[in-house]
């Protein structure tokens, strides 16, 4: 098991050694004298390359698996079989989809702004692929160790909004522009509670570095309950808020308003076809994985095992297991919920989620300074519980409830 735990790092080391050896052999063979700084520089470049290739490969495989798994899970939840024609249990469906997308005609509307229309998928996929860089996948397995990693994540996440806007506006289609407007409004609104709830975790951990936050969640209380933030009252609320914000940021149901197929056809994607569409699709999934990975890092203990006797399983396995669980839950939500309306979506963000994130922030502070004991638990639970009930009542149940309706019967 120790071998498995170290497998990714050992592979990287092996590749670096290989490059080093090959280079040295080549130089002696050719009789070239390397300057002293050359080998370290080369190795740095190669290690960066290895990490980039690894991230892209892992996320592409996850994207391919997810695209078929989502359809299968959704199908089962709706009592269907889902794709089962391409390959064994439909496992080759992503390949078939990819070939289909590649061979489709790439349509650009005559009235479109061709340059922006072309640049939008690139602007979408570039930040999406850069997002996973700061997530700690296992012990010592962070592609880029940044002291302000959380900030990096949100700074890049802002880029996708721009891409959605570019796509919508450049298509010169009414549905696209409306979708783009919705996307911007939604992303700006949900960025706030998202960042606020991330700030809570960072605050309690005392660092903006993802690894630091994971390490702050190590250990067990009472010997078996892991010290993940999600198992505290404030952490639970912040985790839920972050989850909802993540749904909104990755444009997934019930926040898929920018695409909103029942009113806006396909929103900002209406005029995209072929591989450009596939790129948008891919970017959305990679972004979804990345933001789920951040959620795992912030609240679900990152790569930590859930109980002491399961620690023999490699840490990166735990990370991906938690990621898979979150991805499954997002499909589950998609199978169940209808879509918000635009004004309700905005109200939910500003009137419910933002105040709730403030309440969770205060609860976290109280928990932090009240000694993390039972008293701290009770206090922070009160501080998040009362606003939850009050806001829930004033925003939702006061206006909309199934109980206040009467139905008359006539014989």
């Amino acid at each position, binding site marked *: 098991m120790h071998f498995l735990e170290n497998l990714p790092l050992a592979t990287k080391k092996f590749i670096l050694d290989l490059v080093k050896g090959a280079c040295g052999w080549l130089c002696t063979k*050719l*009789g*070239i*004298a*390397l*300057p002293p*700084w*050359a080998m370290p*520089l080369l190795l740095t470049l190669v290690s960066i390359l290895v990490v980039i290739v690894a991230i892209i490969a892992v996320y592409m495989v996850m994207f391919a698996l997810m695209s078929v798994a989502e359809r299968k899970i959704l199908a089962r939840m709706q009592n269907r079989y889902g794709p089962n024609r391409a390959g064994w249990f439909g496992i080759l469906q992503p390949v078939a989809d990819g070939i289909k997308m590649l061979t489709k005609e790439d349509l650009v509307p005559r009235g479109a702004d061709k340059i*922006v229309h072309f640049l939008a998928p690139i602007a979408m996929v570039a930040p999406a692929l850069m997002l996973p860089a700061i997530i700690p996948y296992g012990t010592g397995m962070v592609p880029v160790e*940044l*002291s*302000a990693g959380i*900030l*990096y994540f*949100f*700074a*890049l*996440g*802002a*880029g996708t*909004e*721009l891409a959605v*806007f*570019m796509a919508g*506006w450049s298509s010169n289609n009414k549905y696209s*522009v409306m979708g783009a*407007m919705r996307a*911007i409004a939604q*992303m*700006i609104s949900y*960025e706030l509670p998202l960042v606020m709830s991330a700030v809570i975790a960072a605050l309690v951990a005392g660092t*903006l570095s993802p690894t630091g936050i994971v390490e702050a969640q190590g250990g067990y209380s009472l010997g078996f309950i892991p010290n993940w933030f999600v198992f505290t009252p404030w952490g639970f609320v912040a985790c839920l808020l972050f989850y909802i914000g993540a749904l909104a940021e990755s444009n997934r149901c019930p926040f898929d308003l920018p695409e909103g197929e029942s009113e806006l056809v396909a929103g900002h994607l209406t005029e995209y076809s072929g591989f450009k569409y596939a790129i948008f699709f891919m970017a959305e999934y990679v972004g979804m994985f990345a933001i789920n990975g951040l959620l795992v890092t912030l609240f679900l203990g990152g790569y930590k095992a859930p109980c002491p006797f399961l620690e023999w399983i490699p840490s990166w396995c735990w990370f991906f297991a938690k990621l898979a669980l979150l991805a499954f839950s997002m499909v589950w939500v998609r199978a169940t919920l209808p879509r918000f309306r635009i004004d309700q979506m905005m109200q939910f963000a500003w009137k419910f989620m933002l105040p709730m994130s403030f309440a969770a922030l205060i609860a976290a502070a109280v928990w932090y300074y009240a000694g993390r004991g039972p008293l701290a638990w009770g206090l922070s639970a009160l501080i998040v519980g009362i606003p939850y009930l009050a806001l829930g009542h004033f925003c939702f149940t006061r206006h909309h409830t199934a109980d206040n309706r009467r139905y008359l019967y006539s014989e």
Partner: protein
Amino acid sequence: MHDLFQRLISLPWDQAPQWFFLFPALLMLLAAAAAVMLRNLIHCALCLTLSFIALGVLFIALGAEFVGFVQLLVYVGAVTMLILFAILLTPASEVAASNNPFRSFQLSKALNAVAGGAVAMLVLAGLLAAIFFSPHAQAAVNPAKAATAPAAAIGENLLNHTLLPLQGTAILLTAALIGAALLAKEDKRS
């Protein structure tokens, strides 16, 4: 061939990263120029965003990660979005009035341009003076000091030394927010 390769590899490539800053810097300047000169307002806004991004990259390249990320988050994520929103929601008749100064050269416009340039120069000079002669700025330029956990240092500074101004800013922003909400509401009622 062998010699050429040897010479090529002996060039000071380890100094190369220092020159990388030219890419974002040039990009920033070009994008900024395009943002001023393009006819299509949306293109202008997109170019402005590009220049914001390049500026953020510059910050990061200089080792000021925190500032760089905040630059991206605030300017690309929020300010640009607001600008785009404003452009899309403004009636086109007002938008169409904006014109390319180089297409229709007139003396009055040229004078305007000169005056605008002069004001811009003055502002630039003021900024440069502030950077080079202010004692705070001199301290911050010290790379040894800047490199140590910038985020923590900024937080420390904000919440210890400049707490009062920070709170004042917060109150001001809150007031502005409430005012904006009230204005929007008034507009709806009438």
